[in-house]
């Protein structure tokens, strides 16, 4: 990709970061869409993007879990119902399907958005200590994953100049 004169000028003057590093620590719907939205938009704006999936965020890279993001009604006072009802059997499924129906009108699904991000050049990294913790091996990962790495690799990108790092 060739940069415009303005972009080169801005990069040289250190005015604008051109790399975005995101950390995803959870796989509930409300914790996954914001980083995917930022990742795809940053890629569409010509930025290099790295997304690091750790703890339950790693579920998104798991062959068996990446389609199963849910909405947690327990401890979520924003839902239009008494919070105590969230503990009843079936409430998570119900809240999830209501939210997914609503989302479908405006946005791609989470797996579709991940595929789109990938096609736009976003890199996906799986957290190696989390894989150990959850008993996962590289065979459990979806093909969209670029590599498996730990904190040092993460810090190396996160501390490079022109980079913005966000925990989401």
């Amino acid at each position: 990709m060739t940069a415009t004169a303005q972009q080169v000028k801005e990069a040289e003057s250190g005015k604008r970061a051109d790399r975005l590093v995101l950390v995803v620590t959870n796989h509930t719907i409300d914790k996954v869409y914001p980083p995917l939205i930022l990742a795809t938009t940053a890629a569409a704006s010509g930025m290099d993007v790295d997304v690091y999936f750790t703890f339950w965020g790693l579920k998104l890279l798991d062959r068996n879990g990446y389609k199963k993001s849910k909405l947690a009604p327990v401890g979520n006072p924003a839902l239009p119902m008494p919070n105590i009802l969230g503990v009843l059997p079936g409430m998570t499924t119900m809240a999830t399907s209501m939210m997914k129906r609503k989302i479908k009108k405006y946005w791609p699904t989470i797996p579709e958005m991940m595929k789109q991000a990938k096609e736009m050049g976003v890199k996906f990294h799986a957290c190696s200590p989390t894989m150990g913790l959850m008993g996962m091996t590289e065979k459990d990962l979806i093909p969209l994953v670029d590599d498996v790495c730990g904190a040092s690799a993460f810090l190396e990108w996160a501390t490079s100049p022109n980079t913005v790092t966000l925990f989401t």
Partner: protein
Amino acid sequence: MPQMTVTENEPAKTLDTKGLLCPVPVIKTSQAIKELQVGQVLEVLATDPGSKPDLTAWAKMTGNELLMTSEEQGNPKVYRFLIRRAR
């Protein structure tokens, strides 16, 4: 500076993102503009009120030229953008 004629800003393509929310209008715009030749103009229609600051920022970051923004009153309000592919 050469005088701009109407035909120079004539859109080569129209992208309708009405009803869609951020980031979809920006993502689709970035994909659609790649299908144009450098110098051609893309027309984008949107109803997301965030599309105005978002497409302005996107144009600034990518170096594409936002030629015009207008709003048509209605329910919902429709935003119209003309963007020239710069590279």
